[in-house]
């Protein structure tokens, strides 16, 4: 059995394991580099086969399978890498929607430099779009129940500036906040929802 593509499959399985734990795993730069290297080797092998075909045309039928296998293996590695990158991009975009523009450092540390760049540019085009339709889409993710929501503070965050003024978060204190302000604080884990005021 050939080991072609085995690293790439390992990388995807690793991704699956982190995902199952709701975590964004660290970008596996080493694995990506080795897979790119494998593609290089496969390409060199393709060239070697093509040259042999030119040299000895009578061997073309016997060499075609080898060319096909190496070519398929290149495509296979490419597909695995793109699937890995895309799955991570989806997570990165999700983080933007869940945490706003300032994700927890632990999450950010998992990104590659290119992913950091993706994050900030994605943020930019999203802001541009939201600005052009005059609508902040990243808030208000759940249907409004009432103007105010009761929350309990989970951390001593101190003063925080919101759309509707400054509030002070002191651990275990309860506050009534405007729903539009509350959403992001909850998703960031700073406060928790006590109950809807009207139900």
């Amino acid at each position, binding site marked *: 059995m050939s080991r072609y593509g085995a690293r790439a499959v390992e990388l995807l399985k690793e991704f699956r394991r982190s995902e199952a734990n709701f975590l964004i795993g660290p970008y596996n730069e080493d694995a990506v580099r080795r897979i790119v290297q494998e593609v290089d080797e496969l390409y060199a092998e393709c060239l070697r086969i093509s040259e042999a075909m030119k040299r000895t045309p009578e061997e073309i039928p016997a060499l075609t399978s080898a060319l096909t296998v190496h070519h398929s293996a290149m495509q296979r590695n490419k597909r695995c890498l793109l699937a890995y990158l895309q799955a991570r991009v*989806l997570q990165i*975009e*999700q983080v933007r*929607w869940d945490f706003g523009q300032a994700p927890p450092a632990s999450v950010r540390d998992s990104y590659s430099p290119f992913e950091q760049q993706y994050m900030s540019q994605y943020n930019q085009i999203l802001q541009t779009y939201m600005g052009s339709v005059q609508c902040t889409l990243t808030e208000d993710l*759940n*249907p409004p129940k*009432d103007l105010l929501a009761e929350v309990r503070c989970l951390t001593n965050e101190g003063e925080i500036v919101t759309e509707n003024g400054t509030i002070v978060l002191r651990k275990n204190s309860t506050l009534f906040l405007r729903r539009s302000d509350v959403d992001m604080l909850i998703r960031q884990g700073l406060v928790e929802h006590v109950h809807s*005021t*009207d*139900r």
Partner: protein
Amino acid sequence: MAKRFLEFTAAEVEFLAEDTIITIVPNFQMDMLFFISGTVGPFSPSLPVQVPVWLACTLKTRKRCSIQAPEWLDVAYLSAKLDEERMFHDRFIEMPEHFMEISAMLLECASDDIRNASQLRGIIEDICEIRYAKARHGLSILQDNPVATQVNNLSLMEINSIRPFFIHAMNEFRNFAQTLQATRIRANEVP
């Protein structure tokens, strides 16, 4: 970006139900409210007025009104529906739109305005159970690749609670049926 933005949540179905119009009796005086979706009021003490459920619940929670139960939120009416629902095994009985969400919301915030509240809860629960069992049974006898499945009178909330399974299963059924068909065609062509 999140898959959840492509799905309907139970809270969103309830949100849609909250626009249903019901009658309240306010205890305050207020001019007409010019909402974007229409005009509500004016409000005068003891004068029944029609408002959307969300407004009714908001006013009720602030002790600004009493809520008149919709005609259908009634023991006799719902008991008859329950019997009817039990009678037919192969179809769903027509129910008032959003009956699950509206009854849940009203019984939650205005149980003191609604006669036989706890009895009503029980009957509605029974109706829901029977309908749910029917939906499940309907699902379980599905097979192969039906052209279309009729689901008349199934409410949005009910659809929503079984939607992912239903859709997923139907897509797979079709995939199996199509692949089998393709194999048959291809296998016959092979000499």
